[in-house]
Structure formats: C-alpha cells, structure tokens
C-alpha cells in the first residue's frame, strides 16, 4: 500500500511557486476588472483552493495507477468531446462547455491530461533510439483526434495547446529527419486547406494582423495595439497598481485572462514583467528537471510533456501580447483568470510532482 516515505518527497517548492503565480494572477485580476472586481477575486480564490485540494488528492494516487486508466480516460474524453459537438448548447458561440446546472466545465481542459497520460503509457515501453513510423503515426493520431474535435467547437486556441504535447513526444522519441519533411508537407497542405475552407474569418484576420498590425486598428489589430500601448506606457517601473489607464479605462481587451500580463506590465512596468518571468522560469525549470529524477520512461514522458504543455502556453502568450505570435486566445497557466484552466494546470503540474515524489523505484519479488 502507500509508503509514508514518499510524502516526504513532495516538491513543496514547486507547489508554492504555483500558488504564488496564481495569487499574483488574482491580485491583477482585481486591477484588471473594472466592475465587481471582488466577485472575480473570490471566485478565482475558491478555484485556487479547490485546485490545491485536487492536487493533493492526485498525489495520493501513484502515477502508474493513473497510467493504467489512461486508455479508457482518453476514449471517454473523446466521446464527451464528440457528444458535445453533436448535443452541446453553444455558449458564446462555441460548444466547449459542459453544463451541470450551475456548474460549468470545459472537457477540453481535462482532455489535455488524458492525452499526456495516454502518450506516456504508449511510450513507456518504447526503447528505440529513433521514432518508428508506426510510433510517429500513432502519436500524431492520438493528439490529432481531440485536436480536431476541439478545433471544431470551435476553440482553436485550446486545440493548439495540444500541439506542444505532440511536439514533446517527437522530441523525446527522436523524430527522424525524414518525418520532418512529411510533417512540413502535411502542415502546408493542412494550412492551405484550412485557410481556404477551415478557418473562420476572425481567425484569418488575427493571422493577417500579425503580419500587418496597423491595417485594422479597431479590429483584430486593435487588441495588439492596445496591449503594446499598455506595456510600452508602463515603462520601467509602471504606473502603479490600479493606475494603468489602458486597463482601468478598458482600452485593453480580455484584460483578466489573455492579456493579464499586459496589465502587470502597465501597472508595474518592465520590472514587474521581469519578476513574473523569473518566477515562471524557476517554475518551468523545476518541471523540466523532474525528467532527470524520473524512475522510468513513462515518468519522463509525463514530466516532459507536462512541462512542454505549460511552458509553451506561457511562451505563446507572452509572444502573443506583443505581436510575436497571432492572437489565439491562449491564456497564461496559473496567471490568467479561469477556473477549469487553473484546475487542469494544477493537475498537470501535479502529475510531474507525482512522478518526482516516486522517483525511487522498488523492485518487488
């Protein structure tokens, strides 16, 4: 049964970093929300407590047990996603919410967890030095199915967060160069077909905006422009907490989620940004270094894919709000407002901690 020793191995530092980042997020959600700010603060605080509890529960269960449920979980999540597409009621034009009375949840968030576990399970016995075509195809399909289901909701932003997981798999498994060519060809094909038939107008606009930011200053380019103004006008030390005109006067869009970092940059300036980056970097570093202490292949995959998932979301967001990446609606894990996203990120980071605390393998006879 449970070995009490492993609880001494819990990585409390990482958990603390997660909580700190979440609290910074809550503090600036208060600055960003103009109206009934405390309601948002309480809601997010409650989610933080729930997420923390969920994390601790997750830690009790050995990740190897979780792995044995990976396949059914993955199947279940895809069925839910497919069902949502067919039966779901649109909320804000997307069919991404599962509604149980007053309780709402985005299954797409939990899907990330299932995908990571399933991939780890699949590659736990894969000892080749280079990725075989079979493995390449299988891993692509595992990520591809939920990607398509989520993209169809349509929630391209969340779907795109799955891509780093696949990318992580390719990296770990050692993708041969010839497959890179295949990926490139497929991407071009998908890109071409997607641009002409798949992407919605607003999505195309966002990509166009990245290329020519000033062509539509009140449309998609407007968000980018306002976000840059917020950051740039913040300067070195910022305008002070609650004093940023860009966020207080609501020029900045989606201030409490996608653009929360712009609020921090406006209120606290470059020093504030630097501090957030530093804390985040330490956090990511700790996630990645879990790979080195992982007892088995599955653990390595779990740690690495989770770090990729959270790290890439962070990178994409910080590039997005200054115009280095299209505006895709990807929030910063832990920092941005949003309950199910906070919970999911706690669970994903929880997987890494789970692996780390069970780093000593015991051979049973």
């Amino acid at each position: 049964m449970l070995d009490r020793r492993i609880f001494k191995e819990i990585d409390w530092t990482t958990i603390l970093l997660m909580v700190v980042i979440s609290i910074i997020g809550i503090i600036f959600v208060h600055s960003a929300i103009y109206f009934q700010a405390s309601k948002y603060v309480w809601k997010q605080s409650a989610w933080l407590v729930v997420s923390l509890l969920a994390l601790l529960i997750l830690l009790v269960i050995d990740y190897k047990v979780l792995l044995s449920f990976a396949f059914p979980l993955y199947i279940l999540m895809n069925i839910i996603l497919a069902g949502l597409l067919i039966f779901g009621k649109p909320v804000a034009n997307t069919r991404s919410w599962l509604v149980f009375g007053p309780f709402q949840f985005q299954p797409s968030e939990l899907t990330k967890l299932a995908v990571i576990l399933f991939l780890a399970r699949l590659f736990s016995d894969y000892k080749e030095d280079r990725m075989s075509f079979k493995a390449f195809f299988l891993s692509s399909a595992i990520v591809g199915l939920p990607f398509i289901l989520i993209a169809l909701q349509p929630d391209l932003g969340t779907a795109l967060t799955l891509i780093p997981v696949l990318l992580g798999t390719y990296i770990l498994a050692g993708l041969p160069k010839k497959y890179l060519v295949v990926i490139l060809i497929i991407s071009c094909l998908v890109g071409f077909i997607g641009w002409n038939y798949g992407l919605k107008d607003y999505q195309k606009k966002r990509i166009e905006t990245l290329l020519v930011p000033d062509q539509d200053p009140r449309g998609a380019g407007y968000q980018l422009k306002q976000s840059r103004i917020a950051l740039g006008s913040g300067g070195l030390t910022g305008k002070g907490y609650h004093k940023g005109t860009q966020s207080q006067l609501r020029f900045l869009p989606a201030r409490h989620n996608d653009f929360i970092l712009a609020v921090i940059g406006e209120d606290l300036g470059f020093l504030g940004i630097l501090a957030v980056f530093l804390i985040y970097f330490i956090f990511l570093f700790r996630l990645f270094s879990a790979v080195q202490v992982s007892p088995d292949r599955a653990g390595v995959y779990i740690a690495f894919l989770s770090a990729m998932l959270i790290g890439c979301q962070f990178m994409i967001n910080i590039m997005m709000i200054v115009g280095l990446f299209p505006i895709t609606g990807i929030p910063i894990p832990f920092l941005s407002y949003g309950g199910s996203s906070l919970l999911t990120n706690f669970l994903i980071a929880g997987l890494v901690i789970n692996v780390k605390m069970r780093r000593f393998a015991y051979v049973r006879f």
Partner: protein
Amino acid sequence: MAKIYEDLSQLIKRSRLTLIIFSLLLFLILAFYWKIQILDHQKYWKMAEANHLRSLPLPAPRGLIYDCQRIILADNQPSFKVSLLRESIKNDSQTIERVSQLLNLRTEELKARMDRYRWLQTYGPVIIKDNLKLEEVALIEARREEFPELQLQVEPRRYYPFETTAAHVLGYLQEVSAEEIKNNPYKKWRGGEMIGKAAVEKQYDDYLTGQDGQLIETVDSLGRSLGEVNRIEPIKGQDLVLSIDLDLQKKAEELLEGKEGAIIVLEPGSGECLAWVSSPSYDPNRFITRFSPEEWLSIINDSARPLENRVIRGQYSPGSIFKVVTALTSLETGLITDRTAFFCSGSINLYGKEFACWFKPGHGLLNLPEALKNSCNVYFYQLGRRLNVDTIARYARTLGLGQITGVDMPGEKEGLIPSSDWKKKNQGEAWYPGETISVAIGQGPVLVTPLQVAALTACLANRGIKVKPRVTRLEGKMEAVKDKTGLNPETFEKIIEGMWRSVNASGTGHGAYQPGFDICGKTGSTQVISREKAERMIKRGEEPAKTHSWFTGFAPRYQPQVVVTVLVEFGGMGGQTAAPIAGQMFKLYREKYVR
C-alpha cells in the same frame, strides 16, 4: 530491495536541450519587452495619453450685431448638433450606415461628408447634423451605448430675429469650405465651422468670431466621458453696432415690397448708412444649417436673384441722374454759367441724327437750374455736343463714379465711366462725338451702383467733399473718411438750386416733396431691359417696356442731414415711382431725427 534504473540518459539529454532552447527563447522575448517598455516607452506613453484624453472644442459665440438704437439684429441661440468621432469608429462603412439610419440621413451623403473631412486633423469630430429637434436629441441620448461614436454638443447658433429685414447688410453664415480651410491656414478654422459668407458677417468675420475654448476630458474605450481634466472657456466675439436704423430700414423694405430695386439712406456728414435695402431679400436663418442643399439651390437659382446685393453689386445706367455730372463739368470748365440758356423744341438734330427730349412739346428756353428741374434732355445734348467725353469722365471720377466707394462691405462693383481710351481698349474703335451726346444724359455705356449714386449725392450735399459710406457706426474717436474733390463749392450751389426746384417747384422730382423739409433731388429713368426680365414681367401680366426708375436727393438744402437714393427696377419714370418712395423716407427721417 535494489534499485533498478532504466537507461534514460538519451531522453534526459533531449529534455535538457529543449530547456536550453526554451531559456534562449525566453531571453529573446525579454529583450523584445525591453524594447517596447524601455526603448519605445515615450512613444507608447504618448499613445496611451492620446487614447484616454479627448479634446473637444467649445465653440465661442459670435459677437452680436446691433442697429444704431441697440436693437439686436443678429443674435445667438443654443442649438444641438451631433458629430461623428472618428476615433471611435470601429467599422467605417457599417457605422456610417447605422448612423445614417438613426439620424435619417442619406448614407451616400454622410459618406461623402466623412470623406471630405478625412484629411483634416485625424481625430477631429465631424459635424454630421445640426439644429436638431428635441426628439432627435432624446433619441441619440437614449441610444448612447449603441452609438458611442456620436457626440452631442450644444453650440451657439446664429439667429436673425427680424428674418429678411436688413439681410443684405447682415449677410449670412455658411459652413467653411475645405478650400477655404486650405487657403487660410492661419485662421484655425475647424471643419464644419460656420463663417460669415456675405456682407457684414463676412467683412467683420474676424472681429465677430470669438476664440474657441477647449475641453480636455478623460474617456474610456467606448468614448464615454469620465470627467474633465482641463477646461479653457471660450471667449465671445466682439459685438458690432451698425449705423442701420431698424425703423428706417423696415420702412424702406416695406416701400420696395414686391419690387426689385434698392434704397439707401445715409448721413452725408458721416457716411453712415441708416437704411440699406436690396429687394427682394432672403431669410439668412435658412442658411445657418449646414445641410439643405435643395433650399440653397432654390435661392441661388431664383431669377429675381435675392442674394444679389443690388446696393453695391447692381450696375445700372444712371440716366438723368448723370445730368448733375454733366452740369458740373460744364460749369467747372467754364463752358456755361448757371444763366446760360438753350432752347428745347422737344428734339434736336445732331450729327445727322434725331435726339428727342422726354417731353415731346419741348421745354422752350431754359437755363441750367430749370434744365435740371425739368430734366431737359435737349439742354444736356447741347452740353454733350460741346464737351469731350474724357473731360466728363475725369469729373465723374473726381466725384467718385467708376470706382468703388470703399464702403465696409465685401464684393462692391466699380460701375463704368466710359472714355475714349476705354472704348479703344474694349471695342477697338475710336470714340464718336455722337456717343458723348448719350453720355451727357446718362445713357450709353455708363454704369453706376446705387451706392455710388448715394455717395455722389452726399458729395453734392457736402458741396464737394466726398465721404466714404459705411454701415457700422462711428464710435468713440473714430472719424468719417472724407476726401475733397477740390471743386468750387459755388458750382455745387448752382446745381443744388436746380435740384431744389426739381422737388419743390413742380419739377420732375416733385413726387418726393415734403412740406417743411427742404429736399433737393434729381430723378432718372433708364431704358435698360434684359429680355429675361421682360418675359418675367409679361408673365406677371405687366407692361414690360418700363424703365428703371431713379431718384436721389438730400435734405435739408442747407446743412444737409440725410441722403436718400432710390432705384426701382422697371419702375417707370423716376418721378412716378422712385420719387414718392424717397419722399416717404425723407418724411420718416424728419419725424424721427429733425426736431
């Protein structure tokens, strides 16, 4: 128990490499943040300021215009206008469509208007409708949330309480055109600003225009005001007092009601005009709005040309009025004395051509005062036969004809005093002596404006001192602008004798006679007919062959106080129509000003 580890070194290597790439990328991104936040800080700071601060002009009221009794002729009234803030426009064409629907405007018109002002200062609001009704104001207010790009503002709007009265003195306002803004960069006109476009409103535009104030306010992203940051109050323009006397003005307009013509009443000592009528008139209130091209077109296309300021822009043949100039020339050059007499048999044959007097039976033998009194053509033919046209032209110019009077009104015309040089230049021919005969009685190519005739009359009344007419009152230490002709005052007395007889001794000007008021005057009738006008008169069932009817005179004979000049287009003989009208004006002036 033994720990057994798999060989995971390959995986760890790959993971480490990824982390290194991550770190490098993060460092590069941080450098980009440095650029935005530190290097470009000033630029973005300004953009943030511009984002949340909005500057609105606070329009200054124009100065009021008073008559000489301090009755307000041009007032200001609060009026609502609505502007489109271009900084709030998210989607140009869609917004324009929605707004035009809300305000009941034509989409293309609104679009054209926005395009016209596109080159203006980027965030300047463009006025799209003014003089709103209260219901429209309420409608816009109620839908504030839906239309953050609309901005309601109260502006002082020009209002002329007496409507058509004195319109040709006051002028009117219209929206400044894009060309005018471009051509007058120092004027600081805003797009959509109303400026004086005619008469006093134009002449004294700078004086009447106040200094606009400015309101700087904080706005949120929807353009809603969150409070004032700074406010500079507008400064009202300076008031202007006209020399116009509303009672005389009204009376004069009443007398010309239904006729086309002009009346000027002025004081010969100061040049101040007490009445200035150009008939028909128009209602300047109708031009204040920026948006009624149909109405505007209907007025400028009216064949009676109500916008034409006949007082200074109507050029007419002076007819017998000009006889005073011929007489003056003859006396000054020593050709005749006031006792020189000629015989009028009703007509005279000169240069092989029959020249008729207007009085068929003939006036018999008469001297100069009698000739002026009866306006005898034959007498002046005799003078014209003996005079050189250039001599007449020289004296006419000395008296102020053929040039602008210099009145404080824009757009004055010069008229025309023909000379041999003029003919050579314009028609390439030499002057025929026979033409001088016509000029001597004010026919031929001679053209004068009613104001020139009034100024000439003032010069006669002043015995040779010209005065520059004006429509604004002389105030404080201001002095009338006078100019000596250098002619002998005695000469003028002789002509005035004739003019006195014309009114008071049953002459042609008898219609102007007022008992107890020594009026000296001269009539004139000119046969100038434009076909267009003749046709219009036929349409109205009137006799088309009528002549323009003139009367000009002053009173009293000694120490004259007032000059009255009347022109009635197609009014018939001067004595029939113009003289009685002038008489009425003299009468009213006497009742009001002579005790």
